[in-house]
């Protein structure tokens, strides 16, 4: 990465170094050349000026001599000769321009001839020859020297002007060049920068895209490893992660598969059909029993129609449907036999309680029902068989006790009365057994009607009153106002009432009152019968509704022990519940709760 960034930035760095060097070179060149040109040309101009001046002085010396001032003239001439020589030497050492050397050499040659002529001048004594020499020879030579010196000056001055121009134009060109160069470098920098950005971002973007796909579950994604830098390492690490995830998923999938197989094998070993449904009611899983069942019922999709409703309601959030009796069994035809399936529908919820499906267990209770039927039939057959001789015994006893055949003595009467009492008791017992068998097998038809609890109680009250009055007591009622209606078979519920009240009267002290209370308890209506009898010992309270159960030590003649069992069956068949509250020594409250009737229910229900 560092290298990548470095390599990416390198062209930009090189460009800037190049531009910098070029600028330095340019400035050096600009400043250096002008300086040199100015210095050199200035020396030459100076030398030219000096030469011109000293030459003029020498000419003036000669002029003075012509005018008679021999001595002053000679001194002037001699004084300026070395000056001229020095200037000339200076000029000769500072030849910089083309043609300047020739000019200087001509000056030198002219100077040599001028000095030779001057020597002859000074050697001549006569004024005429001197004049002649001066005007014909020395003066033209002096003029030439002077002109040449001037030419040197001009030449150098000209060059200085030119150098100035050159420097200006050079400066101008350099500015343009620099401007273009900077533009070009900025352009290149942008180009390289973009390339660098791409080079760095591209792998990251690839990685991001692959990460997203990985997140979506596509674990077979590979990030191409293009470089050996940090990004390459990241891509490599990423690929390793994906590989490990793949492996992990494989393991997890294997475990899930194994768990599923275990479940399936366990369930297929289960004789009852088990189905798992998704929220839309589709069958996700069916064990082999369920598969066979659906095949036999010729159902490709969905459940038997009779079960569908319960499944639907559970899938829509209704509480689990777990039947407690065989009442909810659904008849189906399998292989020309009638079979009974008891559906259990259990909503499947995740940890946060969201419903995601339902499990349906269809327990085949055909055999149970058969056994139940056999038991019920057995009980009723046996009861009927018992009943026939018993009725004849009973009738004979009645006949004798009528004393129409003949009068009985006291002992005979006592014995026959005892026999009749036992016959009646036996008959009640058999009738109770038959009732219970009928209730249990569902043969006891219910004729439900919607009735107000008040009316229900008031209708039966006279009969109940008689039961309590037989014990010299009184039945008092306390019925809460505005109670919801209940749906009951009034005869059956009347049976429960008379059972409760007769028990209460039986176990009360003679003259004790019995209370009948009706009130609302939640959604149900509670009917309770309260006595002030001895109460039920705690240890027997749970068993009091069992058939044939009797509290040890109670009056044997009083009952058979089926009354409360029948009451319980009746209340259960009404969808209600039965119970008691009892404090030994203070009394008992037997109650049953009936669900309040829905307003849309009608009076008759099969």
């Amino acid at each position, binding site marked *: 990465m560092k290298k990548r960034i470095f390599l990416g930035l390198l062209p930009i760095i090189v460009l800037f170094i190049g531009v910098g060097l070029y600028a330095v070179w340019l400035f050096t060149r600009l400043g250096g050349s002008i300086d040199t040109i100015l210095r050199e040309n200035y020396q030459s101009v100076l030398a030219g000026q000096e030469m011109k001046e000293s030459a003029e002085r020498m000419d003036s010396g000669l002029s003075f001599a012509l005018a008679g001032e021999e001595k002053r003239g000679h001194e002037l001439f001699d004084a300026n000769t070395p000056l001229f020589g020095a200037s000339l030497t200076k000029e000769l050492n500072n030849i910089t321009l083309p043609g300047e050397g020739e000019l200087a050499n001509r000056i030198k040659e002219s100077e040599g001839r001028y000095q030779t002529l001057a020597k002859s001048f000074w050697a001549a004594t006569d004024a005429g020859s001197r004049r002649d020499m001066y005007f014909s020879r020395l003066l033209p030579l002096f003029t030439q020297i002077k002109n040449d010196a001037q030419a040197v000056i001009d030449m150098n001055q000209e060059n200085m002007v030119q150098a100035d121009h050159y420097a200006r134009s050079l400066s101008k060109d350099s500015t343009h060049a620099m401007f273009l160069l900077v533009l070009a470098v900025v352009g290149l920098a942008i180009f390289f920068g973009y390339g660098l950005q791409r080079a760095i971002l591209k792998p990251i973007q690839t990685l991001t895209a692959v990460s997203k796909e990985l997140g979506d579950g596509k674990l077979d994604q590979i990030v191409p490893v293009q470089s050996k830098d940090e990004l390459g390492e990241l891509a490599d690490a990423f690929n390793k992660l994906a590989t490990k995830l793949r492996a992990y998923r494989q393991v997890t999938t294997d475990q899930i598969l194994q768990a599923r197989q275990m479940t399936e094998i366990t369930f297929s070993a289960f004789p009852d059909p088990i189905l798992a449904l998704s929220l839309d009611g589709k069958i996700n899983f069916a064990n082999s029993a369920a598969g066979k069942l659906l095949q036999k019922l010729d159902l490709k999709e969905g459940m038997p129609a009779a079960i569908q409703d319960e499944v639907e309601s559970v899938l829509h959030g209704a509480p689990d449907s777990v039947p407690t009796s065989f009442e909810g069994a659904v008849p189906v035809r399998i292989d020309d036999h009638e079979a009974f399936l008891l559906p259990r529908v259990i909503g499947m919820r995740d940890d946060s309680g969201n419903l995601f499906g339902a499990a349906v267990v269809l327990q085949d209770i055909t055999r149970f029902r058969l056994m139940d039927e056999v038991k019920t039939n057995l009980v*009723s057959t046996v009861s009927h068989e018992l*009943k026939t001789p018993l009725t004849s015994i009973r009738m004979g006893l009645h006949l004798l006790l009528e004393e129409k055949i003949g009068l009985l003595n006291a002992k005979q009467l006592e014995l026959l009365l005892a026999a009749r009492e036992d016959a009646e008791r036996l008959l009640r017992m058999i009738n109770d057994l038959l009732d219970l068998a009928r209730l249990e097998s569902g043969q006891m038809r219910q004729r439900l009607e919607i009735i107000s609890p008040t009316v229900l109680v008031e209708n039966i009250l006279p009969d109940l009153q008689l039961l309590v009055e037989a014990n010299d007591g009184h039945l008092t009622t306390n019925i809460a106002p505005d109670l919801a209606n209940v749906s009951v078979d009034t005869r059956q519920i009347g049976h429960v009432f008379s059972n409760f009240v007769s028990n209460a009267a039986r176990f009360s002290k003679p003259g004790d009152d019995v209370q009948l209370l009706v009130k609302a308890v939640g959604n149900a209506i509670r009917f309770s019968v309260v006595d002030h009898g001895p109460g039920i010992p705690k240890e027997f309270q749970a068993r009091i509704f069992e058939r044939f159960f009797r509290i040890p030590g109670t009056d044997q003649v009083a009952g058979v022990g089926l009354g409360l069992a029948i009451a319980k069956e009746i209340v259960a068949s009404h969808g209600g519940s039965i119970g008691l509250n009892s404090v030994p020594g203070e009394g008992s409250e037997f109650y049953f709760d009936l669900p309040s009737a829905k307003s849309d229910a009608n009076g008759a229900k099969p």
Partner: protein
Amino acid sequence: MRPRILIVDDETNVRLNYRITLEMEGYEVTEAASALQALHELIEHDFSVAILDMRLPGMDGLALLAKMREVGITVPAMIVTAYSDVPHAVRAMKLGAIDFLQKPLRPEDLRRLVAEILDRHASRREHQIEDFKSHIVAAKRCLNLRSFESARLHLVKAMELNTKSVEAFNLAGVFYEMMEDLHKAKKYYGQAIKLNKNYEPAQQNMRRLFELEHFGSSSEPFNLGEG
């Protein structure tokens, strides 16, 4: 001549009880242990009442009744049923047996019903039937004999004489049930119940109709009411 009564029951001891009960009333009693034996007796002798147990080995009480009617024996029949035999009672009724007793029975029940049937058929000889009670009795007698039109006329008369009689309405219900007009039967039972909520015979008949309608069977026997 003492009224002659036939008892048909396969239980010897039951027959003994019935016989002693009825003999003490001064009736002449004949016993039959099976339907076949009963048919013999019925062909041989004239009887005032035949007491038939619904359950008999071989040919049952109902089949016997049908056979009796088939061969033209019109003797009034009283049916003794056990609690669970009632569904057949409807068929028995159509055969003219409108009097039922349910086991276990007490001697006085038997005595009362036999006397009622005898009385009903004795009154046939009286030419002038004018009071309400007599019309009810006559209607029952006609039902026994399956003279439905006469029964209907007697019922109409009875109702004219007493427009508020639960008994008449109940009997009219029974009549229409025998005629298989369940709608009218229900209407008359309903009238009776309206007149007296606690009139058990009508309640019982109504329950039976309800149960027959909803379940196809019923454990409630017919109830003609007293008289």
